[in-house]
């Protein structure tokens, strides 16, 4: 019986250790502990009470139950070898006690022979336990290795996650940097284009001014000599009239003199045209001599829209257009050179009137209704004054729009425009007043010039 108690105790200890090591479960750990204590208590009671016959069968049952648990529970599969080791001993003890308890004599005799089986069972048990120990060792090593592998795997996974996070962060930074760089490149391209345009305008301005200076003097002589020549031909005609020359010769001479006079007038007319172009070109190189003064922009714009309108009406009685004025009455006076800004307004209004007149002619030819309108808007903004001059005339194509501020660029027929009005206006607004001048347009529909002048100069 002592063997059963001892095995029960040892097997329970083994069960607890195995479960703690491989399948920790506090609930089961507690039950097994109670069972171990129970075995100890019962053993103590047994030594006191001496109920040997009952106790013997009780401990057999307890031990078999414990063995059964080892076979039933998969968590304890690693201990099967230990159970296999002790099982013959348990069975020999059980069979011996059964045989001894039978009333048949031959079985009783057989039970005495069972004592010889114990050494075999113990030898078997020791051999298997040694083997089990080795297996346990191998298992432990494998387990440690597996744990290490797992640890390494976890570390690798963590490292991988960390690396992925870093890669994501870095990628995000790179994408952001790439976008910033792209933006910077776009800004640079735009600035470069503006600089090229400004440089082109500046060098064109210098060039034209240089050419103008050189042309001005000879041109003055062309004009003055042609004028004097006209007077001289008059004198010549007068002299011929007073001479005694036969009539056919006089008629012939008069015709020649008339042609010469007409030619000189043409030279003078075209010389004056060239002179006005050259004077316009010179404005590019000239700094504004006018003084900036507090100016009512509404009044100035109104003065020049009227001037432009009535100037054109005086030349062409059929000319007509609706003047659509929207002045911001809250507009403060701003510091501008009135003569220069007047020139800008005059250029813009004249262009607008020219454009609506052209469109009107087209519409009349096509017999379509059209009402020419030239509008002016002023508006007080935070630090600037906005002036918009709009017409519902011909508008501009993209190609024309790119060139309108270049000196000598004109869409008007030869002799009707020098191509300097807008380039001078651009210079006045941007260089003299530090403002901006932009254009919104749709070909065939409208053109709108937007001027932004700083409210404080």
């Amino acid at each position, binding site marked *: 019986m002592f063997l059963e108690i001892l095995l029960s105790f040892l097997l329970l200890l083994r069960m607890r250790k195995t479960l703690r090591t491989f399948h920790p479960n506090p609930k089961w750990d507690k039950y097994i502990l109670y069972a171990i204590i129970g075995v100890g208590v019962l053993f103590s009671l047994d030594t006191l009470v001496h109920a040997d016959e009952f106790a013997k069968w009780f401990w057999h049952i307890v031990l078999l139950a414990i063995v059964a648990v080892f076979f039933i529970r998969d968590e304890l599969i690693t201990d099967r070898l230990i159970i296999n080791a002790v099982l013959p001993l348990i069975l020999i003890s059980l069979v011996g006690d059964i045989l001894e308890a039978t009333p048949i004599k031959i079985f009783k005799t057989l039970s005495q022979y069972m004592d010889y089986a114990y050494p075999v069972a113990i030898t078997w048990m020791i051999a298997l336990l040694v083997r089990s120990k080795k297996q346990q060792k191998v298992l432990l090593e494998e387990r440690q290795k597996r744990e290490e592998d797992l640890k390494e795997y976890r570390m690798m996974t963590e490292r991988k996650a960390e690396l992925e996070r870093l890669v994501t962060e870095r990628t995000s930074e790179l994408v952001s940097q790439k976008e910033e760089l792209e933006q910077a490149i776009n800004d640079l391209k735009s600035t470069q284009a503006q600089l090229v345009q400004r440089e082109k305008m500046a060098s064109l301005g210098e060039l034209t001014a240089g050419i103008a200076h050189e042309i001005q*003097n000879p041109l003055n002589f062309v004009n*003055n000599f042609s004028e004097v020549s006209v007077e001289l031909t008059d004198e010549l005609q007068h002299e011929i009239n007073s001479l005694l020359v036969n009539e056919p010769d006089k008629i012939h001479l008069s015709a020649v003199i008339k042609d010469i006079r007409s030619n000189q007038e043409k030279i003078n007319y075209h010389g004056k045209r060239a002179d006005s172009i050259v004077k316009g070109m010179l404005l590019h190189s000239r700094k504004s001599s006018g003084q900036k003064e507090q100016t009512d922009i509404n009044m100035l714009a109104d003065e020049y829209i009227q001037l432009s309108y009535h100037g054109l009406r005086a030349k062409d009685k059929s000319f007509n257009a609706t003047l659509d004025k929207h002045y911001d009455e809250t507009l403060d006076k701003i510091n501008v050179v009135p003569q220069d800004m007047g020139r800008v307004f005059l250029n813009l209004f004249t262009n607008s009137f020219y454009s609506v007149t052209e469109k009107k002619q087209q519409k009349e030819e096509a017999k379509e209704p059209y009402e020419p309108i030239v509008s002016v808007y002023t508006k007080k903004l935070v630090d600037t004054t906005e002036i918009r001059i709009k017409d519902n005339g011909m508008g501009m194509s993209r190609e024309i729009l790119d060139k309108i501020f270049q000196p000598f660029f004109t869409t008007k027929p030869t002799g009707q425009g020098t191509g300097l009005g807008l380039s001078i206006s651009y210079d006045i607004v941007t260089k003299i007043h530090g403002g901006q001048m932009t254009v919104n347009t749709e070909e065939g529909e409208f053109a709108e010039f937007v001027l932004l002048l700083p409210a404080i100069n």
Partner: protein
Amino acid sequence: MKVLVVDDEKDMKTLFEQRFRKEIQKQEMNFVFAFSGEEALRYLKDHVHEAVLILSDINMPGMSGLELLKHIKQDFTPPPPVVMMITAYGDDENYQQCIQGGADDFLTKPLDFNLLKQKLKTIM
């Protein structure tokens, strides 16, 4: 009264002689010509006692018209000769410089001879 025309352009002489041919023939007008500021100044110094009206260009190599004007107004007193300045570029800057320098009148090229004739007659 003599009119001293100062201009580095030699054709200016031809132009004046043609335009005022009748006046010169009738001796209503008497023109002399200098082709630089220095030459004009020498003439004036050599003819201190003559009444001379000066018509001077501004942009000339060597002594400019403005420098000539300054010399005339400083050296020939009292009263200094009348000086009319002529410029190819009728801009405000030139005009202001001439008036500040003491010029009596200001004309732009190409010359309006009718206007010039009127002004000369008034002064004479």
